[in-house]
């Protein structure tokens, strides 16, 4: 980034190029990055919470930061009963089921009311659509809740048991199919049109998945995975399903684009702008990086201090057959918005995040040196600050350039523009040394510029990987919705703890990492 783009268009262009370059850079880690970013946006959308949900589904922020009763209970339980690692918590299951019951009832009510209204008024289509969305979301959340409840059962079963147990397979089936049915029943044409794969393909995929479920070594992992393809209409095995649901939440506008070969996902503004993406399940504190979260987790008990728990989650191989996924900007009218005629999808979640901030947010970061350049992405500011003041090549029109040849190209292009000397006195005195002095300086700066970002980006990607993998350990991939995020919050600990408190982090992360990889 040359740091000299002034017009909005230029900035947008820049951001897009930067985003794409980042995407390119991140390609090997694309999966993790993307999934990570997906996780990042599990952020409450207050408008979507249903009336009458239990208190722990309330404002998600509170649920995130101030553990509600249930969560606290589980937390306590978790802390007090580390010995129960192999057992599952019946209490938690019971409460989950009660909640599900409530939830189903609510949805039922809504559908009924809708049905009535449909008969009465034909015109309230938008309201109807909203209701439909609501129902969809609710149903999805119910399914997810069901899955996670079922998932919490799994750790208690031994692997051979699971693999040989047809009931579990059936569970997988039942977990999967309702979701698919639910989706279809809720008439989400977007989902259908979004994915090219026909229904037959879906079922075959599904069968295949079930087969793989049976043969897989890590059944728990597979089991978690299994419902996902169903949710994602069978086309994408794992985390994509989240976004599908997301998209349906956004209104189900997923359009089938001419290339058609990819799935378009759209995140909400709040998700994009969420400051933290990793949250402590015990105290609710938020972190930007999973490594920091792991460090934080050490304070919650010895079990988090094991090398395994602290280890960076490894990325699993097998990312080859990932479905192609692209992202849409939620800003209507933006070229990156899927409704745009010349829609150009964003490649990764990170791109979405940066694009949205750069293009549709206030530029709140001002360079302290020049006090003119403003940025909405802090990394851009930092990049600029490295060069700020180095733009010594100035044209009479006021444009600055970081390189002399660029300036001369500019001057050559425009009639009447002439190279300008910024500080004439300084220039005069320095001029003689310039060719000699500035060279090593520039070299240094260049090497810094080149080496530092690369290393830092490496670091970031590493962290992101960790973060991405780790977050799945803490946060169910299904916890995207406020209600279910909270729900998840309260179910997860039980499940994880009951499984194996000592290998909690790595196992969770590994499994989800693998999940990532598979997807």
């Amino acid at each position, binding site marked *: 980034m040359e740091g000299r783009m002034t017009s909005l268009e230029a900035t947008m262009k820049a951001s897009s190029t930067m985003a794409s370059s980042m995407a390119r850079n991140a390609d090997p880690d694309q999966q993790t990055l993307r999934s990570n970013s997906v996780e990042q946006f599990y952020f409450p959308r207050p408008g979507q919470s249903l009336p009458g949900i239990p208190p722990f589904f309330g404002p998600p922020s509170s649920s995130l930061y101030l553990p509600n009763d249930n969560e606290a209970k589980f937390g306590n339980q978790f802390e007090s009963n580390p010995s129960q690692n192999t057992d599952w918590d019946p209490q938690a299951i019971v409460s989950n089921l009660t909640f599900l019951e409530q939830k189903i009832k609510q949805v039922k009510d809504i559908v009924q009311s809708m049905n009535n209204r449909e008969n009465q008024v034909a015109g309230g289509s938008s309201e109807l659509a909203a209701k439909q969305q609501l129902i969809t979301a609710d149903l999805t959340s119910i399914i997810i809740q069901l899955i996670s409840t079922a998932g919490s059962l799994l750790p208690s079963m031994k692997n051979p048991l699971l693999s040989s147990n047809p009931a579990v397979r059936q569970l997988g089936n039942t977990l999967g199919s309702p979701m698919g049915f639910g989706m279809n029943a809720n008439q989400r044409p977007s989902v259908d049109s979004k994915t090219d794969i026909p229904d037959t393909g879906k079922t075959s995929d599904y069968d295949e998945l079930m087969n793989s479920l049976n043969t897989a070594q890590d059944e728990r992992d597979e089991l978690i995975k299994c419902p996902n393809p169903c949710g994602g209409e069978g086309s994408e095995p794992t985390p994509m399903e989240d976004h599908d649901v997301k998209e349906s939440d956004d209104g189900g506008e997923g359009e089938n684009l001419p290339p058609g070969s990819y799935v378009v996902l759209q995140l909400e503004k709040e998700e994009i702008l969420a400051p933290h993406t990793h949250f402590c399940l015990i105290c609710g504190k938020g972190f930007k990086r999973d490594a920091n979260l792991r460090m934080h987790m050490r304070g919650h008990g010895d079990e988090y201090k094991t090398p395994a728990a602290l280890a960076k989650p490894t990325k699993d191989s097998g990312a080859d057959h990932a479905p192609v996924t692209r992202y849409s900007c939620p800003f209507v009218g933006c070229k990156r918005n899927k409704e745009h005629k010349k829609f150009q999808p964003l490649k990764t979640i990170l791109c979405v995040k940066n694009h949205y901030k750069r293009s549709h947010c206030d530029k709140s970061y001002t360079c302290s040196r020049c006090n003119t350049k403003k940025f909405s992405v802090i990394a851009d500011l930092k990049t600029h600050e490295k060069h700020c003041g180095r733009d010594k090549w100035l044209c009479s029109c006021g444009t600055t350039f970081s390189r*002399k040849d660029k300036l001369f190209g500019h001057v050559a292009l425009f009639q009447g523009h002439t190279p300008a000397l910024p500080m004439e*006195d300084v220039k*005069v005195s320095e001029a003689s040394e310039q060719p000699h002095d500035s060279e090593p300086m520039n070299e240094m700066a260049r090497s810094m510029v080149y080496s530092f970002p690369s290393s830092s980006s490496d670091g970031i990607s590493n962290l992101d990987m960790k973060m991405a993998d780790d977050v799945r350990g803490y946060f169910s991939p299904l916890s995207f919705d406020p209600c279910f995020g909270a729900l998840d919050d309260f179910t997860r600990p039980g499940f994880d703890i009951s499984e194996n408190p000592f290998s909690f982090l790595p196992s969770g992360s590994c499994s989800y990492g693998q999940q990532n990889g598979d997807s």
Partner: protein
Amino acid sequence: MAAAASHQQQHRHPKRRRLALSLSLSLSLSLSFSPSPAPAAAPPLDTLADELLFLVLDRVAQADPRALKSFALASRACHAAESRHRRTLRPLRADLLPAALARYPCATHLDLSLCARVPDAALASALVSGPSSCPSALRAVDLSRSRGFGAAGVAALAPSCPGLADLDLSNGVDLGDAAAAEVARAKGLRRLSLARWKPLTDMGVGCVAVGCAELRELSLKWCLGVSDLGIQLLALKCRKLTRLDLSYTMITKDSFPAITKLPNLQQLTLVGCIGIDDDALGSLDKECSKSLQVLDMSQCQNITDVGVSSMLKSVPNLLELDLSYCCPVTPSMVRSLQKIPKLRTLKLEGCKFMTDGLKAIGTSCVSLRELSLSKCSGVTDTELSFAVSRLKNLLKLDITCCRNITDVSLAALTSSFTSLISLRMESCSRVSSGALQLIGKHCSHLEELDLTDSDLDDEGLKALARCSELLGLKIGICLKISDEGLTHIGRSCPKLRDIDLYRCGGLSDDGIIQIAQGCPMLESINLSYCTEITDRSLISLSKCAKLNTLEIRGCPRVSSIGLSK
């Protein structure tokens, strides 16, 4: 300064006399030119049109520059007329500048070469606040030998002289981009020299290139901070350039083609451009510069005969080529000179001649008028004889320090080039005195002859007496010559302007007196280490009115009496 002042004092009285003379001259002229004879009451100068008066004054100035001063002192009218007439100012001190400009508001040329130090303040006060009536007359300013001014002074120059077309800022070793930016504000500049502006970078050149689009001549000699970027921009913006001096700059092949493609470029000087190599020369398109006539690539160390051969196809209309201290001269390179049939001048100083190289010149460059082979190695009698037999048009030949050539070459040379104008053969020590007589016998059109450090004797000088057109004669370190030989020169070479008698130990006052009497146009004479010279010589030389250079180092018998004359 003091000397100059005393000089003026000295001439006060003669001036008075001349004043009367010139006044009477102008009066008589005015009377004869004016249609109706002026009444005695009216000042005669008022009746004379300025144009006529200026014509008169031009003549006066031509005859005796000091007469104008006397004329100005004659009356107010004369003073006013003189101040209107004067075009060139050459102040001795920078602090006289405001007064001088006020006195001569119509001056167009300001030559500050005598002012070693021109502070910013002087320039500013002289040009900005000084003559408010006519601030714009100056068209040419020469600051090439002045220091002490900076960007501020240059800044004062440009806006106050809108008609400025010629600006010489050579040797501004402290001037840089800021000053160049100020120069660029003089939009009408046609000729500009920024030689030795060491702090100058591409930025300054860029400013000049954009600002002074009318530039015809530009010198960036020794501007070491200038690189391809600036030169490329120059080539792009200043399309009217006809002369460009890029000597000792860091120009490389990146900007060389752009420069040669300038549509009007006639003269390109690239002395000591180490960035020009065979690649750069080879990168030129065929016939890319049809306008280029003079190309100086001397001391470009990184080019070889191959590069030169490949370049010559690009400059078909070249008239002058200087490849001194460049590359070895091979027959193949010389044959490629056939691609530039109009070539008139070829300078190959300090080059190493490969076998048959010189012969090839004889066959390939038939149209040559001037050939310089000085300090070349590998010039042999046979090859030179062959070459000179073919070069029928040659007028000037320089074979300085070609130590291998003998009487054989000289015989061939003198017999073929009877119309030779210039011959320089300093330190051709193997040529005998007998052969040197041939020069005088055959080349009677010689205007310039350099026989320094040769076997010349009085007989040779006697033969040279036939060269009545001789303007310059250098016969230093010719120990055999005596007063007798010099007498022949003094009698028969009235046009002689420059004579070099360095270390001619056999000379005495008589010979010098003969020269001084016979050569009234003498401007320069070198008598260093002519130990026999006394005050008598100086007294006789004082009659040569145009003498401006006199070297008398190592003349122990010259006293202050002689000097005072």
